[in-house]
């Protein structure tokens, strides 16, 4: 895991040095004058040789200091921390929704394979998974907020800050927007896994032992089918991050995803570097955890 994190860090750092010229120039835009560019260059240390910058950046990061945002003049960490709550809740909620929903539908479809129920739900899953997320979000907004007025359409006052748990309703639509296409994908995946397992010998054995169908399903089929599904859901985390960028922009939720878009548009590269590093780091860690879970659940796999 460490070499990958190192590589990730290097790539994060290098990204803003991709273009020829000074990152300070990039940040201030094409119309800035020379003195402000020089000032920023000196302040951010961009005039030093690259390896010096790299080492300095790494040492800062390891101490948890990501520098100060050029745009808001506040430490990057505090901005990210403030926004993490919304994104975290959305990600968690969405994962919860689509996992349960997708797996259930997948199992049911697999059991009644080739029936009209199976065909219909698989078509529906494919359809839902193919729609662009922002379109789904906008449509949901149109239906539930504008027309029916059941749910609020934008913003999020926060739960921890205001202590008002009903504020969670602001996050329902964003959650659903992520959950709907994902559940389609998971349903299809689960279905194919379960179909494979259902044809295996131990299922027939279990049935011929006289076990009730529900026991067969839960004890044997599920336990084995869920392993790769869980692994997939873990690696899906990166996709959730991507999706949350869009969804937060559409619904105007102040979360980490929208912070990315904003800092890109404002050319706030210190924040961007920090965000990329954190998100990529989280992804690596979660993947690693999923590998471990996979190894625990499947006794055939041994890790050194």
């Amino acid at each position, binding site marked *: 895991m460490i*070499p*990958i994190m190192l*590589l*990730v860090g290097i*790539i994060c750092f290098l*990204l803003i040095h*991709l*273009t020829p010229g000074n990152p300070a120039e*990039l940040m201030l835009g094409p119309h800035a004058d020379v003195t402000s560019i020089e000032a920023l260059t000196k302040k951010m240390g961009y005039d030093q040789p690259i390896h010096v910058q790299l080492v300095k950046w790494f040492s800062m990061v390891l101490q948890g200091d990501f520098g100060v945002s050029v745009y808001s003049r506040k430490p990057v960490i505090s901005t990210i921390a403030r926004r993490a709550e919304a994104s975290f809740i959305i990600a968690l909620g969405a994962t919860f929704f689509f996992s349960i929903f997708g797996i259930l539908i997948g199992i049911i479809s697999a059991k009644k394979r080739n029936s009209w129920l199976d*065909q219909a739900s*698989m*078509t529906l899953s*494919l*359809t839902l*998974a*193919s*729609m*662009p*997320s*922002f*379109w789904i979000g*906008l*449509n949901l*907004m*149109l239906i539930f907020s*504008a027309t029916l007025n059941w749910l609020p359409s934008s913003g999020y006052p926060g739960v921890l800050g205001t202590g008002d748990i009903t504020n969670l309703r602001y996050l329902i639509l964003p959650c659903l927007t992520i959950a709907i296409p994902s559940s389609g994908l998971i349903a299809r995946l689960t279905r194919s896994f379960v179909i494979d397992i259902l044809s295996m010998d131990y299922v027939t054995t279990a049935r011929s032992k006289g076990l009730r169908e529900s026991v067969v399903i839960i004890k044997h089929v599920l336990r084995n089918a869920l392993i790769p599904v869980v692994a997939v859901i873990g690696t899906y985390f*990166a*996709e959730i*991050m*991507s*999706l949350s*960028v*869009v969804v937060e*922009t559409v619904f105007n939720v102040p979360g980490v995803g929208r912070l*990315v*878009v904003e800092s*890109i*548009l404002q*050319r706030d590269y210190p924040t*961007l570097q920090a*965000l*990329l590093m954190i*998100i*990529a780091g989280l*992804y*690596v860690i979660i*993947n690693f955890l999923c590998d471990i879970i996979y190894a625990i659940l499947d006794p055939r796999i041994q890790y050194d």
Partner: protein
Amino acid sequence: MFLVVFAPFITPYDPHKMQAGDRLKPPSSAYWCGTDIFGRDLLSRVMIATRLTLGTSICVVIVIAFFGILIGSISGYYRIAGAILMRLVDAMMAFPSMLIALFLASIMGPSFITVMIAIAAVYTPRLARLVHGVTLTVSTNTYVASAKAVGVGEFRILTRYIILNALSPIIVQCSFLLANVILILAVLDFLGVGFPPDVPSWGNIIATSRVYVTRAPWLLIFPGLAISMTVIAINIIGDTLRDAFDPRAHVQI
């Protein structure tokens, strides 16, 4: 076999019927999809966007396929290069696709090239990974060893034996790749970092329709439908291809 073939929105012609005089009209017999705030016919805009999107996506997929196969097969065939390259690929894959695409696109400004490079950078590692895996499997086949023994040159081995036999999963993956590319292209356009804003593309149209969504919902519905239907069609094609290539499938006469 469950085969429903939607006709993707492929248009061979290019009606530049923009800037008529009527604004924000709902779908009617004169304007099949209604008009937008400047009075431009939505159907024409969606059609032009179709050509643009499909053309770009196919180009991007070709680029991705080229580099992906190149990197993947080399890393599968030569172990040392493979170890290094795959580490790089892993690191690249650690970033969510959207972030890299957004970042690159924003640095380079909205344009056609930007879009191509950004999307290619995101998806090439994934394809390279796949090709690497497939190459590993194919390399162990005996015909490769026998070709080497006979003295066939390395390049020929790579191209004629390995890549040729690895093609079927690659093609399947490419079709899903096309679907994903279209989706991510739409998102980039929606966020404003894809094509230049005066060029109509599906994401663009949806983005500009956000303000008027309550007054003119058709502006939102039609481009979105176009995207969805195209992606669904491509996904179905990909599924069918995969089933066709699967040696475990039973042939029904």
